[in-house]
Each structure stands twice: as C-alpha cells, then as structure tokens.
C-alpha cells in the first residue's frame, strides 16, 4: 500500500483511453463502475475536446455483483457495437473489474462480431497510465497487423529508391493528453517534408484502424515518444524489419541529429546540412550578448522521461545552464534518465512522490525549475521561477497558439518559455536591489505571487523557512556584519551562500560568522 496525496500518472486504463480517444472509428468498452467516468473530463475539459471519448462504461453496481456481471458486459458490448459501429473494438477493465474476473475481452471475442476485437489486459495494481497507453497502442497494432506481417517480405528501408517514389515514414507515439503532441506532429511533418520525406501515417493521434493496417507501407518509423511507441516500433522491427528512429527531436542539436538519423536509415543524402543550424532562432538568441547572464544558471529538471532527458541536454549544451537536478516519474524510462544524469555528474531522482521532488528541489537551490505543473506549484512556494515541460496535462498546457516542443519552432518556444521566467527572476532581483530607493513604488507585486499577503500556503512555507533559519542560527552565530553582508548577496543564491558559509564555519570550528567569513567561504568553495 502506498500513501499518495497526488499522482503524476493515472491508472493504465486512462492510458488506453488516451489511445482510443486519439483514434477514429474505434470504441472502447470498459468494464468499470460509474465513478470511472470521471476520466471523460480529462479529454473534454483539459483538452477541450468537442467529442466525448469513445468509451462505454458498463457501470456495474454492488447489487450486480451477486448476479451475472458477465451478462451486463455482453449487453453493453452489443449496444456499443450497434450504436457506434466501430471498425475495431477495444475491450478491457478498470481496477475494480479486474478483481471480479469477468474477462470481458474473452467474452467479446465469443460474441461473433465481424470486427477485430482487441483484448486489453492492463494490470491496474502494478502499472500506470503511460504503460497502459503504450500497451494499448501495441495491442491494436498487433491485432490489426499480425496476419499481414506474416505475408509480407521484410521491409527494406531503402526500397523507396527502386519503387520510384519519395521515401515515407510513420510518426508513432503522439496521443491526446500528451505534452504538446498536437503541435509536435505538425512541426515534425513540416521538417520531414522539407527534406523530401512523406508522412505515411501519424498514429495514434488522428489515425483509424485502416491507417494502422497500412503502417507497413512506410519505409521506416519515427518513434516520437518512447513512453508510448517504443514497444510498437520494436514489434514492427522484429516482425517486418521496419527500422525506427530513436533520437527525440527536441532542441537544436537533437533535431539535427534526428534529421541525420532519418536520412541514414533511409539512405537518403542530406543536402542542406549547412542550413539546419539557422532554422531556429535559439542558437543565435543563446549566443547573443544578452544571454550571457544565462551562463551557469542552476536548473532543476523533473518530468516524464522523454522531456526530462531532452531538457537536460538543451539546458546544458544549448543554453549553457548548469543542471543541478534531473529526475522522472516514468519508471519505464529510469535507466535512460539515470544515464543522462550520470553524464552530468549528478544522481537521477526516480520517484512518484511530488514531496520528494520538492525536497530535492529545495536542496539543489536552483535558479530555474523545469518540471510538471506540480513542480510549478512547488517552485512557486519556494520563490523559484519555473517553466512547465511535461505532463500531467493542465488546461494551460493546451494553448490556443501553435506551441510545439519539437523541431525548429519547438526550440524557439523553449527558448522563450525557459528564459522569460528567468528574466522575471532577474527583475525580481532588481526589485530587491532597488527597494530602498525613493523611486521604488511601495507594494510592488512580485510575478511569483509569493509576496501576496493572504496566501495561507505561503504563510506556512515562510513560517517553516523562518523556523529553519532560527534553528540554524542556534547552531552557529551570525554577527551583525555577517548578516549585513549576507543581505547583499542576490536573493536567488542567498540560501546557498548561507548554508555554504555555515558549512565552512563548522568545518573550521569557527564560533561565529562575520563578513570576512563569508568571503573566506566564497574563496574556499570557489
């Protein structure tokens, strides 16, 4: 049993719903009690979908449990098929139905429908949302293609040449409730078509069962999100030899690497190599003198595996930040995130507890947090600027404007989204510096909101912070000159300077900290 106050991922059947709702002509009969219908609002409210998710909930009640819940399942399947006329039917169960073992998938298969039926077994007590989405996508592909892959020859990725057509690829992985998937797909298709590469199928987002059946018309697959599509790409590789790309095109360097990888896999010569560097404004914006102050900014990163790893690479190599924390809630991606952290000489944080993340964030004392909506809240409490880079989705993560994370435009979006909060942080510093000047308007509101007076949460945090500082001051004495010097340190490094100086003083056995001690400590730690 695990105490959970808030969770980054929903249950696996919500992942299945993400895939089903992303697709056309598909229906999902979910053996589940009435409360599980809450999941519809994720799509209709957060994504602002104008259609209901294509899901029928069997809505069994306590009084049904003594009787024949299997009959109830069959009745719902019959009604759903008749009403929605799906071309493929998904059948599965949520956590409670898993316990009563009606095996709805097997029941459905015995009902004599002439449409493909995908039996989804998603263990609700050990797996989570992204796993459920990945498994569902894989099972759909397997069900719809398993006969065909036995009949066709292995797919040669260079075959477009002798077939006398442009090369074409599938883009696999984007779903509803995935971070900026809607726009990433457009950006990647645009980039590929500039290179003379056609898109065969995008799936699950916007695809139909017929589209899945013609996945094998493409020369290679583009795996856009490992969490959702890697298992499917692997199956297609194993069963029909389809190669797939593994580079995630987020950031300039990886967008370029991605384009290289696609060309290599297709054996397509890359003719515009020189142009690629100039497709996005990020490299120049990052080089321009204005960005000098970005150098070595301490950044803490937490999110899903794909976006966290990508963020770490961009932060370090393209913006010149120092990554002081990297973590993910995607256990399936733990290995890759650990490897990325190791390259940065830090230890990865793999957890599903937002409180652990908040603690790690406090300890790392970053100047910028890149995280989920939850980290945005934690950072706000700590007074640290934050930009959101990952699911779980919030209505703000579905902006009206075109706002991809991938490709050239994605890099532009990332530059703005990450740097603007930092500039606001700088503004904060200036407010702090000039607050004693006579021009300063009293009551200037901070964009971070932590100066608001009627916020009980922040009051608590502040209370807590002052308790901490009182405790620390008990252990070692700060002289007036020491305190005065500390107030001159910019606010965003003050906490770090304070704890470093105390550490230094303790290690040297000093009885008190004065202004000189601060400079000694500064020299000591470099």
């Amino acid at each position, binding site marked *: 049993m695990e105490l959970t106050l808030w969770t980054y991922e929903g249950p696996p059947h919500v992942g299945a719903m993400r895939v089903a709702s992303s697709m056309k002509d598909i229906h999902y009969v979910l053996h589940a009690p*009435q409360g*599980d219908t*809450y999941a519809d609002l994720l799509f209709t409210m957060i994504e*602002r979908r*104008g259609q209901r998710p294509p899901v029928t909930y069997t809505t069994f009640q306590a009084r049904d449990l003594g009787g024949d819940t299997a009959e109830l399942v069959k009745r719902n399947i019959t009604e759903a098929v008749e009403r929605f006329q799906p071309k493929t039917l998904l059948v599965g169960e949520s*956590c409670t139905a898993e316990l009563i073992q009606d095996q709805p998938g097997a029941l459905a298969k015995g009902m004599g429908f002439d449409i493909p039926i995908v039996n989804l077994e998603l*263990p609700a007590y050990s797996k989570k949302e992204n796993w459920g989405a990945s498994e569902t996508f894989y099972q759909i592909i397997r069900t719809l293609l398993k006969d065909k892959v036995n009949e066709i020859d292995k797919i040669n990725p260079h075959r477009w040449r002798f077939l006398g057509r442009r090369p074409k690829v599938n883009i696999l992985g984007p779903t509803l409730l995935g971070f900026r998937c809607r726009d990433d797909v457009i950006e990647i298709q645009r980039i590929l078509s500039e290179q003379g590469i056609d898109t065969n199928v995008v799936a699950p987002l916007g695809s139909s069962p017929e589209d899945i059946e013609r996945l094998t018309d493409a020369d290679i697959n583009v795996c856009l999100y490992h969490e959702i599509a890697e298992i499917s790409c692997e199956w297609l590789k194993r069963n029909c030899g389809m190669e797939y790309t593994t580079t995630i095109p987020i950031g300039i360097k990886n967008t370029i690497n991605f384009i290289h990888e696609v060309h290599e896999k297709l054996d397509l010569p890359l003719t515009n190599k020189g142009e690629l560097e100039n497709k996005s404004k990020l490299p120049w914006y990052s080089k321009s003198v204005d960005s000098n102050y970005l150098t070595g900014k301490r950044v803490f990163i937490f999110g899903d595996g794909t976006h966290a790893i990508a963020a770490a690479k961009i932060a370090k190599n393209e913006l010149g930040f120092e990554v002081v924390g990297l973590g993910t809630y995607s256990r399936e991606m733990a290995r890759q995130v650990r490897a990325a952290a190791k390259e940065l000489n830090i230890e990865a944080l793999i957890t599903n507890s937002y409180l652990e993340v908040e603690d790690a964030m406090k300890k790392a004392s970053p100047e910028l947090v890149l995280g989920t*909506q939850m980290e945005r809240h934690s950072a706000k409490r700590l007074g640290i600027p934050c930009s959101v880079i990952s699911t779980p989705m*919030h209505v703000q993560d579905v902006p009206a404007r075109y706002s991809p994370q991938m490709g050239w435009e994605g890099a532009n979006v990332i530059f703005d989204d990450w740097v603007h909060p930092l500039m606001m942080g700088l503004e904060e510093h200036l407010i702090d510096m000039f607050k004693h000047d006579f021009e300063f308007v009293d009551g200037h509101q901070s964009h971070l909101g932590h100066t608001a007076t009627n916020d009980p949460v922040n009051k608590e945090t502040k209370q807590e912070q002052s308790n901490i500082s009182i405790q620390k001051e008990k252990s070692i004495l700060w002289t007036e000159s020491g305190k005065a010097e500390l107030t001159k340190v910019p606010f965003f490094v003050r906490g770090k300077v304070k704890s470093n100086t105390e550490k230094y003083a303790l290690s040297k056995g000093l009885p008190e900290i004065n202004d000189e001690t601060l400079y000694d400590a500064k020299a000591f730690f470099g």
Partner: protein
Amino acid sequence: MSKVELNKETGPREVFCGLTSIVWLHRRMPDAFFLVVGSRTCAHLIQSAAGVMIFAEPRFGTAILEEKDLAGLADAHEELNRVVNDLISRRPEIKTLFLVGSCPSEVIKLDLATVAQKLNRRFSGQVRFVNYSGSGIETTFTQGEDGALKALLPLMESTDDEKLLLVGTLANNVEDRFKKIFNHIGITNVESFPPRQSTELPKIGKNTKVLLTQPYLSDTVRDLKHRGCEIIYAPFPLGVEGSTKWFLAGADAFKINALKVHEVIAPLANRARQALEKHTEILRGKKLFLLPESQLEISLARFLHNECGMELIEVGTPYLNKDLMDEELNLLPDDTKIVEGQHVEKQLDRVRASSPDLVVCGMGLANPLEAEGISTKWSIEMVFSPIHGIDQAADLAGLFSRPLTRNQILTSKTLATH
C-alpha cells in the same frame, strides 16, 4: 403525491462516485483528513475533480492498493495501519481521520470498520477514526457526504435540549445567514452538521428538530430518526419559494407563527425577487433538460420552473427518495418527466431530440454538447457555490442565465472544435 411522471432507467452512466464529495467535505472540516483506501483510479479521480495542485499538502489522500495487498487481507490491514501511522506522525494536526472505502476495497471486503476500531483504541485521545464507503458501486457523487455524516453520528453525544439542527454541508457565509434569520424568527438554539471543526460535533436527541439543507442525505436521516431526532419535511432552501417554505417548516416545528416568519423574510424575499428579475428575463420560456448527478436536480427544476419560468423537458436524478422529495415533487408542474437512474446514450438521444435551450450535466458531457450547439451548465458548480437561501436566489439563477447570455454574445451556435 403530485402528478409527476416517474420513470426509471438503467444502463451506462456518466456520473461521479461518492468519493468526489471529499472535495467539499475536507474544506468544511479543515481539521479532518480523508484517507481513501483504493486504487490509483481513486487518487486520480479526486485530484482531477478537485484540481488539488493548489495545496501544499492536501487534506485527503489515497492508500493505493498494490498487488501484494490483494493477495492477503491480513497483510492489507497491516499495511493500512502502517500508512495511517506514517500519516499521523507527519500530520499531527489531524483530529479526525475518515477511512473511506472505494470500489476495490469493497470488492475485496477490506474491513475498514474493524481497522477504524483498532486505530481508535491505539490513538485514543489524539485522533478519532471513522469509516464510510464512497465507492461507485454503492454511491453517486453527493451520496458520499451522506456516508460521511452517517459515520459521524455515533460520535455525537445525546442531549435532551431543544434545538434546531441544520443538516448538510453549507457554505460558511450561508450557514451564518441561516442562523441569523432563524434567530430573528425566534429560534435561538441553531446548530449545523457537519460542523466547521470535526471535533465540535453537535449533541442530538429527542428534542432535536432536523431541517435538511441538502436532499441527498437518506441514510443520515434514517439514523438521526433512530437517535430520536424529529425530521422536519420541507422543500429544500433553494430559491425564494423553497427557502421561504423551508424557514416556515422550521418555525412551525417550534410552534412559531407563520406571520412572524413572513415579517422577517418578506423584505429579503422582495429584494431577492427584484434581483431575480434580470435573470428571469433571460430564462423565461427556455427549455431545460437536467441530467442526473447531484440529487439537487428536482429542487433546481422546481426553482427554475416556478421562479424563473423555464420549461422542464426532463429532470434526471441518480436516486429518488420519495419521502424526502415529496414536498418538492408536489411543487413541480403536473406531468413533469422525472427519470431516476441513467442510460447516458438514450438520454443524450432525448436531449438532442428535444432541442433544449440549456442542459445541466457533468463536466464530461458539457463541451461535447456545446460543440453540438447546445448550451450547458456543469452540475458540479452547484455543490461548490453558495446557492442556498433567499439571498442567493439571484446568484443561483445567474448560474443558469450566464451560459445563455454568453451564447447570445457569441451568436454562432456551432463553433468549430478539435
């Protein structure tokens, strides 16, 4: 009994389960913690319905069952003890801990009552433990509050003092207002349940007269009767008419002359009717379809028809307690179509066929209906907004007139959606 048309329907539903009521119960009693014993689905449901990210540490959580908990119940009880211990040591401010059963915990027959009993002995004097079920196989949405209140009754001491007890969660400002009005009417000993602090439970007994503020409290009412309380049957205090009759029924139980009530209420009622007018102008003659969710639907239909002039196409309710709703049903126009239960697909067919001007529905259905050009009002707002009482009548009407006004401003009936 009135001449309304009562129907029952079964089939796939689109409603929240009883766990959702934690979202307003934890705000009402800030010294209580609600620990759901359930699955990741339960945790995800509550955070999705509540948008809990605004809290540093929310006053509710889920003990998520894992595979090993399903293998043996003895171990599951042990595990739950461990989770509770951790929670109490981290949150020493908790005074009452609700162990809330869920669909999976009910199906595996986790005995939360026994767990609560044992914990009560161990933490005696520090934290009180009660248990109830908010499972979706037994409860719908607001029925979770019914379970929580019923669970608190055994903790309430007995008294023979005469008092008026208002039962059902109210917004604090509405509660204050109700107490003040009853004081003016001449009833001085007015208490309310659930209280603002979980430890300050009212005493009850044979001279306690219960006036319900919410219609969804069937089980609580039954147990209050067992404790000797007198239940005052009345329409619910929504709108001027409902609230007036509600105050009158309360006064009558205390043998206070109706004239006295009218004297106190008349100026408020006049003011409220004036404030209602601008909404009534928009709502009059408009066709209303209420989908089942909160059990407030019948009272809302009565208000929107009698005071705002709306036409009722269909009034859905997840559950109909005829005793508690009798007074309300009598106020509805003849032949009002009431449907208890739901077959969401068939009901949506009827929605489309009847081309309503406004549909009251859950959040899962609102945007899809809007995309079809049908104006909607989400029912969850009724349980979060202060809508009770005469002073709030215009605000309540405003919840329904706003989508229509907005629709008029934006003109085009069908927007392109993605």
